[in-house]
């Protein structure tokens, strides 16, 4: 209150008495109800923020050497530092492919009246999780699996391809869990677009491609940027399928495997924390870059201008 500094004569009546503290706090939004946020907030502080901070501190307290020794070791040792490239080689192409598939399909499906069967089928791999998908693909993509059998039977290939325990296997698993994820996110953002906008574009002479590039794409691009970030972060943290379906000592030695081995095989929690921090930093860098690009785009309502 700005007038508090002005000394005034004692109030003649009770009118000008200062309101009780509880009233003043309530005016700023702090009352008993606000305190209900505390238990959950403290739980997340204790179980998420504190461990992160603890990990950060631990990562600069290496078993030997200066405070940056873990980070120096990570980047000096190709066995460790190459995991970043190996992970990006998997995560970037598969995320781009997932989005490239998700957009046209979501644009079609949004016009369907009975979407539920399709969305229910697609939600299966997400709910079942990567471990089950890995086990299923080991069988399905294996040399005797149905996938190879069908291709051989169709005459596309002469002999079964090796599709598991290598890069391709992990890629397939990221596709089968990542595509539905990207698709459902895209679908929920494209269903918000007013169909009248596309009709208006058509009425003004835009063909299908022009309607997509000039009207639809600019409207969904901010949502796509967020979808890209979420999909990428998921793909970048690939773990069980990289072990089970990939070559964990070779082409699919991803960064989470390095972190896991440091912690649970070498018991070097300090190095493991450093790797986890590097993993978080790379994700953050890519997400920040995409979101910075997004901030240059139109991000207003997509439902038309009315209301």
């Amino acid at each position, binding site marked *: 209150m700005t007038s508090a500094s002005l000394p005034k004569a004692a109030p003649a009546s009770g009118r000008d008495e200062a309101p009780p503290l509880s009233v003043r706090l309530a005016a700023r939004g702090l009352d008993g109800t606000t305190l209900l946020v505390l238990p959950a907030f403290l739980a997340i502080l204790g179980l998420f923020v504190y461990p992160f901070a603890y990990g950060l501190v631990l990562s600069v307290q290496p078993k030997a050497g200066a405070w940056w020794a873990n980070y120096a070791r990570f980047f000096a040792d190709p066995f460790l530092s190459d995991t970043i490239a190996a992970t990006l080689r998997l995560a970037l192409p598969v995320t781009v492919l997932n989005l490239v598939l998700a957009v046209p399909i979501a644009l079609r499906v949004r016009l369907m009246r009975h979407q539920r069967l399709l969305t229910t089928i697609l939600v299966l791999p997400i709910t079942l999780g990567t471990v089950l998908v890995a086990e299923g693909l080991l069988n399905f993509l294996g040399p005797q699996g149905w996938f190879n059998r069908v291709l051989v039977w169709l005459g596309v290939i002469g002999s079964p391809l090796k599709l598991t325990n290598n890069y391709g296997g992990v890629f397939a698993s990221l596709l089968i869990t990542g595509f539905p994820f990207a698709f459902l996110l895209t679908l929920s953002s494209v269903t918000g677009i007013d169909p009248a906008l596309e009709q208006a574009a058509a009425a003004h002479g835009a063909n299908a491609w022009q309607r997509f590039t000039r009207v639809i794409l600019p409207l969904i691009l901010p949502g796509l940027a967020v979808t890209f970030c979420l999909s990428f972060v998921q793909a970048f943290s690939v773990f069980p399928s990289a072990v*089970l379906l990939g070559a964990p000592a070779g082409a699919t030695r991803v960064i989470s495997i390095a972190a896991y081995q440091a912690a649970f095989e070498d018991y070097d929690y300090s190095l493991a924390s450093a790797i986890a921090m590097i993993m978080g930093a790379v994700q953050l860098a890519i997400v920040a870059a995409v979101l910075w690009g997004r901030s240059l785009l139109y991000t207003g309502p997509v439902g038309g201008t009315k209301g």
Partner: protein
Amino acid sequence: MIRDTGPGSRLWRMAVWAVTLLFCLNLLAMIAAVVLNSFATRWLGTWLPLGFTTRWYAASWDEFQLGDVLVVTLQVVFLVVLVSGLLGVTAAYALARRDFPGKRLVMLVFLLPLLVPPITYGIPLATVLYRAGLAGTLWGVVLANLVPSIPFVVLVMIPFIEQIDPRIEAAARVFGAGTGQLFLRVLLPLLIPGILAALLLVLVRTIAMFELTFLVAGPTSQTLVVALYYAVFAAGVRAGQSIDAMAVVYMAVTLVWLVIALRFVNPTQIVARAKQQGAS
């Protein structure tokens, strides 16, 4: 909508549906292969197994101590649902109804665990829990699983609570309801559908949560999905059919709850937030 009739756009439409169909077909075939193999006597180098049996289920039950694992899974899931429901709903109520300094920061703290993948924060979290002597215990697994569950409940419930007119609560107060009666007679009945949906989704997600449980669990606190991972990891030690039988048990447990959840929520809500749905 606009129906283009040119050959190019027809071709494009067909291509889009063909890709969708192909994806679904491969997905369903992959699941079918797991189910079929779990009932197979022998399946090598043929389109279909030579014969069918249910003995792998009994074998799997004994080999992997599925009874114990299921009990642990249910305990973990029940506790996570209970605690994240209590903390998440109350926090969502405060965030939906009050504006206070620092609210954006609080929201960010709730958003981050959903954006950062579990393996990234799981390793420091596991380290802390090991130091605290909680890793390897049931409670350690529960605590770890609360990290994504509480924010999930908060973010699902906020838009749900926001769409309830606060004047209804004001009316209850004016007509004489104290805090307890307001909660029991007015708020709870109105919130039940939202709470049910949020908790069912937490339930499904916790059953399938591999990374956090894997990093924190000990031999006696493994959930089904972690046990499945170890079984697949050590494939070759056991018969493949036995592992697939366990995978089918896991699928059944997950899908039962998924089917129940889908009675209350839209499949898109499992990945996207309810708010985006409401906007359309």
